[in-house]
């Protein structure tokens, strides 16, 4: 049913075959295994690389043509946005904090993805996989650049964006995305594709780019929605690379199935943990809401992921380990993360706040099984304390999970009143985890994870101060010394949104009544 009547020109499939296949060769001066040292040691058995499918059949000339078109459209919007002072048209200056997290945590991952795909694009022996990975490498560089360009406009007006790549290597919560990607890049090429293309992009990335970007549009940020959707338009190709790679491995040899399942288990959980911050952005940082994290999870993870794993069952693949726990988490993780960042707002270069009453009501409505019972009273208490002049900032350091590097704030499955702690011993040392999922991942590869650069440990070991700092001197303030090492502008980049320079400036630029409190704006639309 695929073959059609041959026309004067070659059809798409023939054209694609003619332009992409038979272009690779086996090396003769050196053995193939020496030239391609990475594509066998993971144990994945490939018998016939010719079976690799590229369903989009995008040839290089078509690729450049459509990518060029996307860029022209995107830069027209970015330009217009800048010329018209679009930053003043966003719903509320609190929203800008979501963009700060974007440039701090997401954009550097685009660059890491660029490098990661360039690496695997060099190291597969199959030409089809190499071409797909190389195209993606170029895409990811484009995403890094367009996000940097689009957000650089905001950087002229708002705090918390001026040092993003420096922070990525240093700031405690940015170790979460950084370690995720370095874990993937230090795996072999098949694990990398399973991690990034399949588990992250196919199963989870819709949750980042689709509802959140629709939310950006709803909040008047045409620049972000345009770079978001422009990046996401490449994502369809990336997701397809992910699912094709999985199918290819599973079809090539039944011995691949357990290896792939183990990777899916690991990377689903790693990706799920990483998305905690997106859950929080969606529920707390978009003043005008499109959908809750819970609704997005149901639509993109449960419904779509469910369909995917039902389809893959024919290969003997099951739902990832921890799936049920992740589904239970939809009622909780955004609230637990916001609570953590609210408390650590002195140590993070973005602002937090207690939502307005209207927003609290929206959360109550969207989370009938958890919000009023567990989370709303806490937020109302924080607000009361703040209004009494006692905004609380935690200055101690949290215990981190050795695997995902997130502070231990997740709760026990089945009991949202109890923090979940797990531990294991390896080589005489004790290691701590946020969940069974993270503990299990560690136990599969302890020699890898004992090397984790855990920010809190590093601070305690004295590795996060500027040269010449003497922690033994009387009155030493470790947090201040760490923030100095981060190059964070204390008082401008951090603390509550209420009373921030961003808040003041935005109100002044818009001609709003000064200092009446942010509470009057925003709210569900």
């Amino acid at each position, binding site marked *: 049913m695929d073959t*059609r009547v041959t026309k004067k020109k070659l059809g798409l499939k023939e054209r694609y075959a003619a332009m992409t296949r038979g272009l690779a060769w086996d090396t003769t001066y050196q053995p193939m295994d020496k030239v391609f040292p990475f594509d066998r040691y993971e144990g994945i058995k490939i018998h016939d690389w010719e079976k690799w499918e590229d369903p989009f059949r995008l040839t290089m000339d078509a690729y450049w043509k459509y990518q060029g078109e996307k860029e022209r459209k995107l830069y027209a919007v970015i330009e217009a946005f800048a010329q018209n002072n679009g930053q003043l048209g966003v719903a509320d200056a609190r929203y800008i904090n979501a963009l700060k997290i974007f440039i701090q945590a997401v954009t550097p991952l685009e660059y890491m993805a660029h490098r990661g795909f360039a690496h695997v694009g060099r190291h597969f022996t199959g030409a089809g996989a190499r071409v797909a990975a190389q195209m993606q490498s170029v895409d990811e560089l484009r995403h890094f650049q367009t996000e940097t360009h689009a957000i650089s406009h905001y950087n002229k007006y708002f705090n918390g964006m001026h040092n993003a790549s420096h922070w990525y290597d240093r700031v405690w919560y940015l170790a979460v995305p950084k370690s995720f990607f370095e874990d993937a890049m230090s795996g072999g090429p098949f694990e990398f594709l399973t991690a990034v293309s399949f588990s992250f992009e196919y199963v989870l990335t819709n949750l980042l780019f689709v509802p959140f970007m*629709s939310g950006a549009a709803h909040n008047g940020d045409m620049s972000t929605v345009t770079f978001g959707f422009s990046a996401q338009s490449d994502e369809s190709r990336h997701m397809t690379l992910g699912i094709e790679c999985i199918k290819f491995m599973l079809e090539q040899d039944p011995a691949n199935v357990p290896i792939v399942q183990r990777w899916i288990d690991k990377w689903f959980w790693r990706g799920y943990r990483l998305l905690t911050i997106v859950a929080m952005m969606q529920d707390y940082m978009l003043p005008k809401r499109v959908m809750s994290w819970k609704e997005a999870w149901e639509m993109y993870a449960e419904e779509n992921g*469910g369909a995917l794993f039902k389809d893959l069952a024919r290969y003997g693949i099951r739902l990832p380990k921890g799936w049920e726990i992740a589904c239970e988490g939809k009622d909780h993780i955004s609230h637990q993360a916001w609570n953590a960042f609210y408390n650590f707002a002195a140590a993070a270069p973005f602002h937090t706040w207690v939502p307005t009453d209207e927003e609290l009501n929206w959360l109550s409505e969207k989370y009938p099984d958890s919000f009023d019972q567990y989370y709303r009273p806490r937020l109302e208490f924080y607000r009361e304390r703040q209004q009494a002049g006692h905004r609380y900032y935690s200055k101690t350091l949290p215990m981190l999970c050795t695997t995902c590097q997130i502070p231990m704030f997740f709760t026990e499955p089945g009991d949202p009143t109890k923090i979940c702690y797990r531990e294991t011993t390896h080589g005489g040392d004790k290691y701590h985890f946020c969940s069974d999922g993270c503990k299990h991942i560690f136990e599969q590869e302890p020699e890898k994870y004992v090397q984790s650069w855990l920010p809190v440990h590093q601070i305690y070991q004295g590795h996060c101060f500027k040269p010449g700092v003497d922690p033994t001197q009387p009155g030493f303030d470790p947090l201040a010394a760490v923030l100095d090492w981060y190059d964070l502008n204390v008082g401008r980049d951090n603390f509550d949104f209420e009373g921030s320079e961003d808040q003041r400036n935005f109100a002044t630029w818009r001609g709003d009544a000064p200092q009446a409190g942010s509470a009057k704006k925003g709210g569900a639309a």
Partner: protein
Amino acid sequence: MNTVATVSKVFIAFQDNEEARPVVEAILADNPQADAVYSPGLVKINAPGHLVVRRATIEEQTGRPFDLQQIHVNLVTLSGHIDEDDDQFTLSWNQ
């Protein structure tokens, strides 16, 4: 435990703009089982089991030639196995 009870849905989403509109309209015309859901900036089309995008229908909508690979420009996301040739683009699940 939320595996889908009956037929799994495929979906395809586009930026909600003028370029994508004839594509969306063609999909809805060719796939009576599909429904379109609009949110800001975005239109997402869901269909049980399978969905087809036909070049001929898009060309009827616009009155000019259309290369199916042009959908990449406004495509936001999709789900399902893909099969594409010059005349149609399909999404399906095996079950």
